[in-house]
């Protein structure tokens, strides 16, 4: 059972977090995740389900067909009315990690790629959630869904997730739209989705697919991973820029193109953020030089916010 940290405000993580560059030197994904998660506790989340536990949540008027076991006889004696008692079901969290494995994620200017960063982030979250005895699943996609591991809490689940992440091979194009669609179809039970991608794609379609996830009553957290070089476009020499996804080659002189690029990128980021806001999705933009603890911190903060809003 997860320990409740309700009402505790988490301070912004200290600067002594592990530098991602150092972290990426660690070969084992599990070890990387372990290093990041150290110090966090399990059972910090509340289940979105109304189950039958000790903690009462609300009364509801009886209607024919309801199980008579849950009728509050005392209240009936008092008020001569039938009420059904409802309790908060404090089950474990079912979290699916949706990881973008497309070719565009294989770009990196810091000695490791966005994909490495995303995998480490996913591993960290998986480790963290498993340690909280929450169910973790994985959906890895490139142009289509490469692998899907349904969320479970059992022995070996973390290992499966980590192995899948470690052995992920590069895909080609990004099929995030179809991946989100498939996730919405395959995961029937409500839970949480953590989407890790660079979101360098068309916003309109993304909006509708994320909307599917949200409309299923799921909680969605989005981590947009970008390389610093993508954000700042600090290239010097004119070169043929090669699109790793489409294979297109364009001659670009960065001196001339930088300003326009940044303008377009910022606009895109703004649009993505606006879209997520409109859907009630928490989005965090992560540059690959940001310590992963920040991401974890963001995640936890999001969780606590969710709990606060759910609790009346």
């Amino acid at each position, binding site marked *: 059972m997860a320990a409740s940290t309700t009402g505790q405000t988490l301070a912004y993580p200290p600067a002594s977090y592990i530098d991602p560059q150092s972290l990426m030197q660690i070969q084992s994904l599990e070890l990387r995740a372990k290093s990041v998660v150290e110090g966090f506790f399990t059972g910090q989340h509340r289940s979105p389900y109304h189950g039958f536990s000790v903690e009462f949540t609300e009364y509801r008027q009886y209607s024919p067909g309801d199980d008579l076991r849950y009728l509050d006889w005392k209240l009936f004696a008092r008020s001569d009315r039938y009420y059904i008692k409802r309790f908060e079901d404090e089950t474990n969290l079912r979290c699916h990690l949706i990881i973008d494995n497309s070719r*565009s*994620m294989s*770009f*990196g*200017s810091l000695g490791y790629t*966005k994909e490495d960063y995303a995998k480490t982030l996913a591993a960290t979250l998986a480790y963290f959630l498993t340690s909280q005895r929450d169910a973790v699943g994985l959906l890895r996609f490139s142009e289509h869904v490469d692998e899907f591991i349904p969320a479970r809490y059992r022995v070996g689940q973390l290992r499966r997730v980590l192995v899948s992440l470690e052995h992920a091979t590069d895909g080609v194009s990004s099929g995030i739209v179809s991946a989100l669609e498939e996730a919405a179809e395959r995961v029937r039970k409500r839970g949480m989705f953590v989407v890790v991608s*660079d979101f*360098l794609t068309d916003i309109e379609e993304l909006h509708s697919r994320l909307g599917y996830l949200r409309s299923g009553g799921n909680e969605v957290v989005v981590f947009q991973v970008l*390389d610093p*070089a*993508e954000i700042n476009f600090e*290239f010097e*020499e*004119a*070169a*043929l*820029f*090669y*699109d*790793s*996804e*489409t294979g*297109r*080659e*364009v*001659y*670009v*002189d960065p001196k*001339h*193109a930088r300003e*326009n*690029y940044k303008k*377009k*990128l910022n606009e*895109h980021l703004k649009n993505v953020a606006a879209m997520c806001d409109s859907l009630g999705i928490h989005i965090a933009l992560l540059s690959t030089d940001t310590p992963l603890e920040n991401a974890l911190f963001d995640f936890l903060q999001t969780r606590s916010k969710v709990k606060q809003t759910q609790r009346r």
Partner: protein
Amino acid sequence: MAFLTPLYLLAGLAVGLPIFFHLIRQTPKGRQVFSSLMFLEPSPPKVTQRSRVEDWLLLILRALAVCLLALAFARPFMRSQAEAAFEKDDGRRFVILLDTSASMQRENLWEMARDEVDQILEGIEPADAVSVLIFNEKTSSVISLAEWSSLESSSRESFLREKLKELRPTDSGTNLGAAMISATDLLVEQEGRQNLESKLIVVSDFQTGSQWEQLNGFPWPENVQVELISVKVNETTNAAAQLIVNQSATDNSVRVRVSNTSLSEQEQFEIGWVDEFSAEETQIQTENAVSVYVPPGQSRVVHAPTPPQERTPQRLKLTGDQQTFDNICYVARRSPWEAKVLFIGEEAETGPESLLFFLEPVFPSTATRTVEIFDWRTSENEPPLEGATISLVIVGEELTEQQLVWCREWFKSGGQGVFVARTAEQASQLYSLLEIAPQPVREADVPDYEMLASVDFTHPVFAPFDDPRFADFSKLRFWKHRVIDVDAIPEAKVLASFEGNSPAILEVPVGKGRLVVFSSGWNRSDSDLAVWSKFVPMMNGFLEYLGKQREFDPVNYVGDELDLAQFQFESEIATIRMPDGEIATGNVNEKFHLNAKGIYTLAATEEALANENAIHLAVNLPPAESKTDPISFDLLKAAGVPIQTQSIRNIEDAQNVGDQRQLMNRELESQQKLWKWILLLAIFFLLSETILAGLRQRRTSRSVPATES
């Protein structure tokens, strides 16, 4: 080198493009792999600061390919020296054939034809050479190529026009085939000038009866082209009347064949004798005119109406058709020869043993002669008719003194005779007849029979047998004959001799006359002569030879050559009155050319023309000339005539001259087809460029690795 479409050479300016691209082409140092190009826009290329052309070989290949493509589209061709010389100096050569046959007399065909020639002359350039020939049955030159060249270029046309004005269509037939062949020969005559443009232009009505058939299979020279200019009539109905030879001895009527052309619009015609005394020149005697129905394309043979009795030359006229040039048919009715044969000798025998028995059937009367045989019996003192009217004397018995004297006189005065040796005694009288010393004549010793060993086929009488089909004299057998010593008779000519070399038939000149001696008779006891198949023609040959009368072709056509020798005039010179009344003379050993239709009168002297003995010949248009339907040019094409559709008449102004030049250039270009080779070369350069560029590309991509960070 010249170009057919020189404007395409401007496309050669496109050679600047590869040079420009070689200058501006930037070479990025490497490739930068990037996550997404969705926010990137391609930077415009920039002229490299080094301003240096890179990769000279590729540039040259590309520039060459562009230049060659432009060159190929400009369609270049080479003008050979000969052609250049031709353009400068020699010009073209034309032979114009102008039809002057009788059919050109129709409507205004002749004027149209002359106009066509005028138009042709307008298209002639000073460097061109022109020859004009006129043709009917024969081809003759109005102006030759050499004459044209020798004239001043300014006076050539007017000279030719003057000459053409003098020309008129003749009454002759048409021989288109021979004319075209001889004109072609003229064009190719000059050797070493094969490259010249030579053209044969024929201006004619191209009628069906123009004897074009001999063009079939004629090997046309390569550089000669033929242009056919046809002049056409509006009225296509043409019927003609042609005289058919009358062979009957009794029927004196005239038959004519009336033919109608296939394009005719009329079918009903009328034939009548022209009224010679009418004021109107060709008014027919309508009272006895014959009407004849001839559908188009067919012919009918009809009897002409009964001729008037007067012996003036007659004209038959056909009426009812639209073209009149061939409607008059001349008929010269010849009065029959009245041959009077005097047979001397009172024969004891009758029947086949008698000479006289065979004479009557041997000399029958025909349409051209009547033969009368008179028998001068020994009992009579005077001959039964006047000597002047006798054509031939045949001596078949021993002569009385009186007869001998008469005969001597007869021969001396130019009489003709046949002496048949019946017995040795009678034969010895020959010497006294010839007034030479008598020689013994004996009966030949013939064991069984004797045959003729040699015959003089050069003699006019035997000449017709000089043919392998008729020269067989081996069936002729002689049982008895007399041996006459030829050597004793001066100027005797042996016409046939027996196996023992003794003469069988002799010809001896006596005084002004001639005597033919048979050493054996044709009575059955002497020989098989009378039953021999060639006896009748031989005897008639002797009759005509000695009687100075020969059969001759009663129908003559304009353009024919008349053999004057056949009329056997006494003098060397014959006098001829032409249809227009003009008197001409001709050597009897030469041919006389009949060049007008009408009645020709022939006699030995001018005075004799008025005699009854004068010969009247009708000369008509050749029947083929009346076949006036135009022939299809497809037939001529099929016969191999290289007909060209481009007409010289269209080359009238400078514009057309330019067109002609352009046409020639186009032909020259299409023959040489240089563009194909140039295009092939361009493709080769492009292929080389592709291979080279590919190699370079591969090398570059190997040497500059992608800068994936």
